């Protein structure tokens, strides 16, 4: 395996130093960077709160994105309003950047819904649990964009790109590789954003691939690029480039964001069974949030007061999310019969009536 340090695009070192890259530049302002920092802090807060909610029995499960904030925020902030995101189940930071209300994400994990949000509201598709399935959905959506003529017109409000997220493990799935084939065959405006967080539950990345994942794209004929996934500036720059290519009609690209899952796979997981504590310690030194803080503080853009305000804002958001979570209505079994089809069947209507009569018989008894 080639040394990723030599292949990886980086614009901000773990110590918060800006470095140059021959091909990629970050051209945002300090305010933009401060905005990303805010996004990342909010994401981490959201994530922590959800983990806490799970521990307290308010969620059945949570899939933390701890450590992956830069990969998610940097890429999410590179999308335009009309762009469309097809996430896996861990893209809470992307959801945040798309304006999805944090509490919206909780329904699935609390077990009150199977997702339940409207993908068109923020152009943020449902969380996908079957590994890799969303890569095909995103590609198909991008084929539709193409059919609509919404690429390469030069109109920034019209040209549309799709970005689909998946993990390192997902690259082994047939669906993901078929998505690569379709995307390139039709020159579809889709960016494949792979967060290589080094682990697929207990399996290290080497089980899936012995070469860096971004090189998978070489095999399919479109560009692949590896970026320091803990560097929000680099992620933003690389994703902007890939999205622009896509919207200009130049077809797909694969981005491998080299990052680390600092938490458990999910709250049901026990990572001590399969990985060493030292690994986590090494990665803590590359924390995506700390380096931006250091950078902005050094430049005098932020100070402790700014950070304190941000923390307060994050705590408010978390409190609101928690309150919203507890207030989520339980699903009504009887109503579920109406959701199976757009055009309800007589059969289900009858089953629904039987169910309601049956349920009512208990009410009477009590």
């Amino acid at each position, binding site marked *: 395996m080639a040394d990723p340090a030599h292949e990886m695009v980086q614009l901000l070192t773990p110590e918060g130093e800006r470095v140059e890259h021959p091909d990629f530049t970050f051209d945002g302002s300090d305010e933009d960077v401060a905005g990303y920092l805010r996004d990342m802090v909010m994401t981490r807060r959201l994530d922590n709160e959800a983990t806490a909610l799970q521990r307290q029995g308010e969620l059945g499960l949570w899939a933390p994105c701890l450590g992956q904030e830069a990969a998610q925020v940097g890429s999410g902030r590179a999308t335009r309003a009309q762009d469309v995101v097809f996430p896996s189940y861990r893209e809470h930071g992307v959801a945040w950047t798309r304006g999805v209300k944090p509490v919206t994400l909780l329904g699935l994990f609390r077990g009150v819904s199977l997702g339940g949000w409207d993908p068109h509201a923020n152009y943020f598709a449902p969380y996908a649990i079957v590994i890799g399935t969303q890569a095909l959905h995103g590609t198909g959506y991008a084929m539709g964009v193409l059919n609509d003529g919404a690429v390469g017109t030069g109109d920034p409000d019209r040209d549309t790109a799709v970005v689909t997220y998946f993990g390192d493990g997902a690259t082994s799935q047939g669906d993901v590789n078929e998505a690569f084939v379709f995307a390139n065959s039709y020159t579809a405006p889709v960016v494949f954003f792979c967060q290589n967080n080094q682990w697929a539950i207990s399996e290290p990345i080497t089980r899936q691939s012995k070469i860096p994942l971004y090189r998978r794209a070489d095999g399919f004929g479109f560009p692949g690029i590896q970026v320091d996934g803990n560097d929000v500036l680099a992620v933003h720059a690389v994703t902007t480039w890939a999205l622009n290519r896509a919207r200009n009609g130049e077809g797909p690209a694969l981005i491998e964001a080299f990052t680390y899952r600092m938490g458990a796979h999910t709250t049901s997981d026990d990572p001590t069974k399969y990985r060493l504590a030292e690994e986590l310690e090494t990665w803590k030194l590359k924390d995506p949030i700390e380096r931006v803080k250091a950078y902005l503080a050094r430049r005098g853009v932020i100070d402790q007061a700014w950070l304190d305000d941000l923390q307060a804002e994050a705590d408010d958001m978390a409190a609101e999310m928690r309150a919203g979570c507890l207030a989520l209505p339980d699903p009504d079994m009887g109503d579920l019969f109406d*959701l199976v089809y757009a055009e309800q069947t007589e059969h289900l209507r009858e089953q629904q009536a039987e169910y309601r009569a049956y349920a009512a018989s208990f009410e009477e008894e009590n």
Partner: protein
Amino acid sequence: MAVEKLTLGKALNAGLRRAMEADPKVVLAGEDIGALGGVFRITEGLQKDFGESRVIDSPLAESGILGTAVGMAMRGYRPVCEVQFDGFVFPAFDQIVTQWAKMHNRTLGAVKMPIVLRLPFGGGIGAVEHHSESPEAYFAHTPGLKVVSPSNPVDAYWMIQQAIASEDPVVFLEPKRRYHEKAEVDVEASPRPLHEAVVARPGKDLTLLAYGPMMKTCLQAADAAAEEGVDIEVVDLRTLAPLDMPTIIESVRRTTRAVVVHEAPLSGGLGGEIAARLHETLFYDMEAPVLRVGGYDLPYPPSRAEDEYLPDLDRVLDAVDRSLAH
């Protein structure tokens, strides 16, 4: 009245064409459906007339075809996917059961899945392995899917348009060995609703319940039985999920006897479901148990044994006799 004499295959072609004319969001996708017109020529001429972005030759990957259709549907399209043969639908099974069937439900109705899977199914054409399967029970057991099968050109013409117009995912099973059957199709008639069964031949002694390729067999069996003085009613199910139970029950209540016929392996086939429902509803009305005629519980056999494997007139009549003997 504008009547055309069409084969079942040509009726499908005409129905697809009309659906594409009516709605620019209708797109076709599949292997070899463009220049070749599909291996059964069902899409013949459509790419020429509607262009490559509406009649899409797909890379050779069924999961890819059906999975990208999900995204196209989310973008507002109405994809009609052809899978070349029944036996090749399984690489895409995951997309069908975990995505097509669940997207509407998962999004609380925010996303509709108006997708059609066109699947030539069943045997009897002397083909090699994987080209003669009858996988309908898998789909019919999957909540969130609708499953239909036309048995004749008239239904083929209308049902394909109705399936495309449906806001739900429809598995559209084409009885491939009947592609060449001909009938007059009135393209101005008003079609029967998609999810209704129909009494294709009235009778009073026994009800044959069938669909797709077995309809012709059952109608012939009914004719043969008539010569022996047995008056058989034949119901064309047309819709396998949901089943049109009112029509089925009304018929069997009258005749008091029923035989279900399908090509799919007997065990776990649709016949069991129908039998269970009939006995539950008509327990005191039935003079005989519901009998089932199906493929034997084997992998589809080599084609030189398929005539013995598939239900035919004799096996249907044998079941009829057994039922009447009760």
